[in-house]
Structure formats: C-alpha cells, structure tokens
C-alpha cells in the first residue's frame, strides 16, 4: 500500500470545493433565459378533480405558462412506472395503478402534483400557483396499510382490487408450519417498522432546458443514477429519445435512496421547457420534500421463530404487510420482497423459512428504497425476535446468536441467497470486547444507584449488496441489469481520466477510485480525474445505490485497468525490446524485471499517442472500457452493540456507547468507510429514537418540516466506536463487500434491544421518544 494506494487513509480530493463554497449543486446552475417553476399540489389525500381554473393564474405578473395534466397527456408523456415485476403467489402480475406526472382526474395523496406554473421569478411562480383554482370532491382516505386491506377501505386505484398490489410468498410454507408445530419453543412477535423520510440535506431539484435549434434536451437533476433517469424518461415517459436527452447529475447533496427514482418534477421541467420555450428550474422546499420524496420502511409484520430443545432455530415464519403509498415508485416492489425476505435467514442456520408479503396502496407518499431498503426491515424483525427468544429461553442473547451462527461457507439459505464468506463470531467477539460487554452488570448497578435504567442490546446483521448479478435479478423480475461500466483514458502525457457509471453524492469516489488507479500504476491521485454524472460524457452506467459503487463500480474500473495495463506493458516491452511478460509497473515506471531498463509511465503514454513506434498491428491510443456484471451479491455482516441509560423521570434515553464491528471485505479507504458507518448508524439511531412520520386519519402529513420531524442532531448522538474484521469477498476482483448501508441496517434493533432491556419490557414502538419511553416505564409500575 502506497500513501495514496488501496487501504490508505487519504483525505478527499473533492473536499476543497465543498469547504470553500464552490460545490455545484442543481440549484446553483444558471442557464441564460432560465425561469422558475412552482407546483400546485393536492391539499387532499384522496379526491376527484372536478375542475381546474387557471385563468386568473395566467394573468398574474411574470407568468409564462400554466400547464395541466390534460396538456401533458395530450403531448403523449407517459405514466410513471415501477420497473420491477412481482407476481403474486397465484401467478398474477402485480397490480400497478396509473401515475400521471400531473394528476388530471384524481389525486391520491397530499402533495400529488396537479398544475405547474412557470414564471419569471420563483416568487411570481408561487404567487400564481396560489391563484390556480381547483375544485375537488373529497373522498375517504386511508393511510394505514392493514386498514387499507379492510373491506370498508376506500378503493384507491381501479387496477388494484381491495388496494392489494400483490400477495407474494417465498420459502416453504409446509415445512415451516411443521417446524413450528414440532418446536420445543416458539417466540412470537408483532414487529412494526416505522415509516421514515430520507431527508437528504439538498432538496430535490431539476432544471430542464429544451434547445429548439438542435431539438435537444438537457436535464440537470439531483439523481443518484443519471443514465437510468435518461433511459426511463426516454423509453417509458416519452420525454425525448435517448440520443436527444442529456442528463447531468452534478454535485448531489445526499441521496440515501430517495434520489434513485425519476419523479414527476424532472419530467415536467423538460416538457415545460419545450412548451414555454424557456429553461425551467424547480427546487423543492423542505415541506415539498417531506410530502413527495419517496419515503422508506413502513412494514407491519408478525413473526414466529421455532426452536428445538437445544435452542437451535428450526424454522421461521413471517407475515408482512408493506405500505407502498399512493403510487408504485420505480423500485418499490422489490424492497419488501427480494431485498427483504431473502435476508430473513440473517446470520443464522435456519433449515426452513416462509415469508408472505402483501403490498398495499394507501393515501400516503410513495414508499421505496431508503438506505438499506428491505434489509433493515429483515434485520429488525430477526434481531428483535432473537432478543425476545433469548429472554424467553433464559439464555444470553449473545450465546443464543452464537449457537445459531452459520459457520461454513458457501452457505445456501432457504430464501435464495448463497452466502459466500463471513466470520460472524469474529464480529460478535470484537463488538463484545470493544463494548466491555462483560462489565455491563457492574455499570447497570452503578446506574441504578444513580436512579437510572441501563440496558444493553445486540444486533447481528447481514445484508446482500453489491447490487447485483443482472441475470439473477432479471429472473426475479428486475426491468434493468445491475452491472456497471468504466472507461479508463490514459492521456498522452500520462494523466488519467476514469469515467464511471457510479455516481458520488457524498461517498468520495473522486478519491477512492483514484486510489485504485494509484495502486495499479503509481500515478499520483492528483493526476487522476474521476468523471461521473453526465450522460454525454460517460458511457451507459447504472449509478449508485445498494452499496454497489465499490463492489460493482470499482470492479468495472479494475477490469478496464487490466486492459490498460496489458496494452501499456506491450508498448513498454516493444520500447525496451523486452518480453511483455517481464514488464512490471513500479513507482510510475514500466521496468524490465531484474534489469535497470525502464520507461517512465508518461513516456509510454506519449508513445501510445505519437504512434511512431508501436508494436506491429497495434492501434494507437490508450483507452479501455469495461462493463462488469457481478457473479453474486456481496454479504457484508457485523455486530452492533448499543448501551443506553434512561432517566425514568423524563423518559429521555441517552446512548452511552455504540459499538460497530463490521466485515466489509477489502477496504480502499478506511477513513471513508468509517464515515459511512457513522452516518448509517446515525440514521438507524434516528429511526429508533427520533424519527416518526405521522399522517393523521385524513391523510395530512403532520410531520412535514424540521419543526415536526425529529432529525438526529449532534447532541442526540455519541461518538461511535467502529472497527472492522474483514473476510475478503470472493465474488469480485477487489474483494470488496460494500459499506454504505450497514449502519442503517444493523443499528435500530441494537437500540431497541437495549431500551427494552433497560426497562424490562418485551417491545416498544419506534421511535422510542421520551414520551413513549416514559409511558412504557409507567406501564411497568401498574
């Protein structure tokens, strides 16, 4: 490892622009002649649109255009779709309701876009939006998923009878029922996974620009995957053909899943630009983000876990209702199915599993992937159940887990996944040592003497990421492949550009991808530029989500580097009159091994481009491309320990320590990996303690600002103790598993296990806010 190579703690190249205020986010973009859009959104959760009167709005100062869904439809703009087909257990395809980018006959959640106004200034657009007069006939709304399945519930989409999108299953029902029947002990729980709002700090934004002279569109947008945005807007939404549409995702201020999807606003900004003849920019305010960004989680489940007399798990049965909101967002269907039920084996050797999942429409914001996506729900369900089982069986939670760990690999679970490598006991041991688990009893007593309740909780998570082998996900219903591409351009003077389909919105790719090049060729990272986020510059790629940029994106870079290396060695061998098998790359030069003959890297590059003296038949230039499709998912895993102290007088929970021991496979930059864990754990603690998304019964979002939705602040969190003990991933050339989601996946059950341990109760609802905790403590006394 060099000072800038793989494994080095290199400070980030991209930081300088961010710390000096020179970052370029979509809202910072200015195009000559640019005007501003404001959306008129439904104030009702469920209503018929009787009449839309835009006359007054059209006459307002500065107004350039007021456009409705009827005009959008007339221009042939398509409905938004979900790109992952799920079949119900009766074989029928999922029931997808129509989602027009602008609603024209019915609105189905508060925030549903109905009319767009384009005006000279943002203020004028908003003023005019308020002057649009829409007559609604209100309909009964339902926000709670189990209630949406009741007979009396209002019908939300004509396509989905009884609001049921699909009724899907995975695993062996008969064997699992038999295991439960024969069990020495069965632990049963109802598990609720609370709805969350992702809340990237940069609100979503779009700038659409139609260039009439060239009949060409450009869209600057807050996207985690600009190529996918272009594909979907072309192939499904008929905005423009791919060759006439450029999508640019510049600096993007966080995503966490919520910026994967293509939302109505970017489609409408492009369409409105053509309609009005001006570039159109829209930037969400925070309340718009709360109302319309895809939310996460929102599962209600029951679980039965069967044990034999030796406390070995013999079967697991799960029934889940997943709330998908008012419309099916782009990948919504895969989250509660193939990203969830396939992880229900956790780190445990479970002979038989059956999961049944019903996905349901409600009059709420669409729900899709949020950091972890399905895997946090699986982990929460399993790790809460393991904790309860240990208490019921009267055994140590750590030892119950250890007894049931999978210990030999590869391991085929009963729910599709084939785990390739791992050492779960190593993470458990590391976490327990770091947390001084053995000393907890003493600390609990000391806390009790101070009048405080102290508790400790474990969570052993596993996730499948490095999304994903294309053929495998295709067979499960995915509408896209999940490979990644890379192009490596060695310039004539030896500097290097890496063009990647991955997209960085905080992950530090400009540094880590350059470290990979430095490792291979010895070129300083300042001489390596990472180009991403622009469909005109970068070949087709699939973007960043599912902890895939390292395992898949960097593997594509590694494959392209292989090709560059092979050609570079051929050129060097020719120049040095040596055998190419004898060429090694060291310290920025290509050398003939065992001799003092060498050619500097830049001279070899120059030779590739002057082409005066190349091996016979070799094409000039030094630029290679790779499309890498992984052969398997990757399986990061680890153990988290949370220790809390609760003030019984106020119900305030203090996290006195949080330990993370992860196995991420090989690591490119430990500093960045630790940062990912910190952020993920903070989001998980946010879910467990603070973040509650509340709709009232009529479908109004009560938590639609930072005054109402409790985001984790610095003083809600401790400093974290993080470490890794890594088993390299055998499935990709770099041995990387991925680290982006682990923190958010593993942490919520650790927190809730600690709180229930402290209070001495079986369950508590997330978020375990002070009032909830206080009430739970009170209830134990009556």
């Amino acid at each position, binding site marked *: 490892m060099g000072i800038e190579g793989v494994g080095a703690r290199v*400070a*980030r190249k*991209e*930081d*300088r*622009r*961010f*710390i*000096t*205020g*020179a*970052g*370029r*986010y979509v*809202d*910072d973009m*200015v195009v000559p002649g640019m005007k501003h859009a404001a959306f008129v959104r439904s104030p009702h959760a469920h209503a018929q649109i009787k009449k839309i009167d835009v006359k007054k709005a059209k006459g307002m100062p500065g107004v350039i255009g007021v456009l409705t869904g009827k005009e959008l439809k007339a221009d042939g703009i398509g409905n938004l779709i979900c790109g992952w087909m799920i079949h119900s257990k009766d074989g029928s395809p999922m029931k997808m309701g129509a989602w027009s980018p602008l609603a024209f006959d019915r609105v189905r959640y508060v925030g549903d876009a109905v009319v767009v106004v384009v005006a000279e200034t943002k*203020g004028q657009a908003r003023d005019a939006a308020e002057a649009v007069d829409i007559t609604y006939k209100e309909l009964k709304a339902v926000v709670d998923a189990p209630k949406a399945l009741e007979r009396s519930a209002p019908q939300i989409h004509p396509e989905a009878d009884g609001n049921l999108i699909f009724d899907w299953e995975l695993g062996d029902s008969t064997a699992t029922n038999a295991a439960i029947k024969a069990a020495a002990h069965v632990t049963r729980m109802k598990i609720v996974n609370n709805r969350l709002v992702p*809340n*990237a*700090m*940069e*609100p979503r934004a779009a700038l659409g620009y139609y260039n009439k002279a060239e009949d060409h569109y450009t869209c600057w947008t807050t996207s985690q995957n600009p190529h996918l945005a272009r594909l979907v807007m072309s192939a499904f939404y008929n905005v423009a053909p791919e060759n006439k549409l450029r999508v640019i995702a510049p*600096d*993007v*201020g*966080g995503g*966490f899943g919520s910026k994967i999807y293509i939302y109505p606003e970017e489609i409408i900004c492009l369409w409105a630009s053509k309609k009005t003849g001006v570039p159109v920019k829209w*930037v969400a*305010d*925070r*309340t718009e983000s709360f109302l319309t960004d895809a939310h996460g989680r929102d599962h209600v489940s029951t679980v039965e876990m069967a044990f034999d007399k030796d406390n070995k798990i013999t079967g697991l049965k799960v029934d889940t209702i997943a709330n998908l909101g008012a419309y099916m967002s782009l990948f919504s269907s895969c989250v509660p199915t193939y990203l969830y039920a396939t992880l229900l084996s956790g780190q445990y050797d479970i002979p038989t599993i059956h999961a049944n999942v019903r996905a349901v429409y409600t009059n709420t914001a669409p729900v899709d992937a949020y950091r972890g996506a399905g895997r946090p729900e699986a982990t929460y369900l399993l790790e809460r159940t393991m904790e309860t089982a240990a208490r019921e069986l009267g055994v140590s939670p750590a030892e119950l887990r250890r007894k049931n760990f999978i210990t030999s690999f590869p391991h085929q679970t009963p729910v599709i996944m084939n785990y390739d490598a791992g050492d779960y006991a190593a993470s458990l041991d590391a976490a327990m040592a770091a947390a001084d688990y053995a000393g907890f009893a003493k600390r609990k007593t000391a806390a009790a003497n101070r009048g405080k309740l102290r508790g400790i909780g474990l969570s052993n998570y596993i996730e499948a990421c490095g999304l994903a082998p294309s053929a495998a996900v295709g067979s499960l219903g995915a509408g896209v492949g999940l490979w990644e591409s890379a192009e490596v351009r060695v310039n004539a003077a030896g500097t290097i550009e890496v063009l990647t389909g991955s997209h960085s*919105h*905080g*992950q*530090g790719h400009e540094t880590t991808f350059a470290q990979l090049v430095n490792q291979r060729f010895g070129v300083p990272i300042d001489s390596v530029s990472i180009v991403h986020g622009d469909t005109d510059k970068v070949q087709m790629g699939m973007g960043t989500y599912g902890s895939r940029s390292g395992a898949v994106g960097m593997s594509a870079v590694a494959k392209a580097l292989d090709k560059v290396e092979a050609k570079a060695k051929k050129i060097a061998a020719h120049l040095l009159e040596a055998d190419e098998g004898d060429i090694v790359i060291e310290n920025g030069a290509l050398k003939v091994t065992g001799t003092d003959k060498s050619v500097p890297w830049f001279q070899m590059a120059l030779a590739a481009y002057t082409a005066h003296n190349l091996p016979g038949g070799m094409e000039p230039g030094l630029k290679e491309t790779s499309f890498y499709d992984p052969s398997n998912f990757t399986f990061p895993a680890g153990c988290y320990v949370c220790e809390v102290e609760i003030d019984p007088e106020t119900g305030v929970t203090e996290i006195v320590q949080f330990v993370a021991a992860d196995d991420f496979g090989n690591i490119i930059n430990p*500093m*960045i990996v*630790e*940062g990912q864990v*910190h*952020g*993920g*754990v*903070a*989001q998980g603690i946010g879910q467990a303690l603070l973040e509650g998304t509340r709709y009232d019964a009529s479908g109004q979002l009560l938590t639609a*600002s*930072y*005054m109402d939705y409790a*985001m*984790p*602040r*610095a*003083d809600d*969190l401790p*400093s*974290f103790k993080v470490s890794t003990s890594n088993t390299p991933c055998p499935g990709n050339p770099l041995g990387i598993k991925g680290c982006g989601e682990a*923190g958010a996946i593993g942490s919520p059950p650790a927190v809730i296990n600690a709180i229930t341990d402290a209070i001495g109760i079986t369950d508590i609802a997330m978020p375990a806010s002070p009032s909830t905790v206080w009430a739970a403590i009170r209830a134990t006394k009556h």
Partner: protein
Amino acid sequence: MSDISLTVNGKRVSGAAEDRTLLVHFLRENLGLTGTHVGCDTSQCGACVIHVDGKAVKSCTMLAVQASGSNVVTIEGLADGADLHPVQAAFKEHHGLQCGFCTPGMIMAATDMINRHPEGLDEATVRAELEGNICRCTGYHNIVKAILAASETMSSKGKAKQAA
C-alpha cells in the same frame, strides 16, 4: 423594491431586491454566492449560516434589506486566498463532510463557536452548540472531531501570537 448595499467578503456590493427577499436569496441569486445553501423552510437546518457583523446568522431568517449596511462574510470569503481557514482545513483532514451540502453552514457556525470560546471547547459543548445545524451524512462524529481540532489549532495560534 429596495436598494441594498453592504460589504460582502470584503467588497462593497449593492443591488435592488423585493422587500420580501431573504438575505440567503440575495446572496445566491443577486451576488452569485451559491456556497450558502437552503436546506429547509423553517430555520432549522443551518445550511445557510453566514457571519453578519462578526456573528453567525441564519441567512434564511433575515431579510436582505435588514442586512443593508452590514459586513457579511460567507463561506466563499473565509479562506485567506489559497490558504484554507483552520476550520476548513480541519473538516478536510478529519473527514467532517460527505455530500458537502450542510458543510458551508457547519463551517461558518463552527468558526463562530470557536471564536466565542477562546478558552477552548469540549465534545459536549460542541454537540450542544451544533443544535442548529443538521447533517444527514456524517452522524456528526467527524464534524465534532474537526471542530475540536480546529479549536486547538486556533487557540494555540492565538497563544503563539500573544507570546510573540
């Protein structure tokens, strides 16, 4: 419309803006200083923190006309030419940022915090005083580390100056 003139990052600037224009929008749209960000509607997130007459202010909570005659420093004006301010340098060194969106406000708030505590800072104080700045990426761990480190650097520099 009102005429507004003020000093921003050491330069006298003036312009006209609607009375309802917030200072943050004046900075971003009239002056092109897009380093100051808008992350919420309710003065909670702190992405828009700047310094007005030496104090940290949320520029979304002040009308542009109210700043007329003031001396404003934004994230663009914090570094001394090519030399980063110690707080900027500490954020880079300690990985105190990921997506970078909250970073300008964090750095401006942190600089003010360190200035208000010449005696030095501890972790609990830093965490308590960051209450008005939200970050979704870092879990604050490395932000806190960076601010403590910058506080050390700045107070030792101050001491060195005093000694000299």
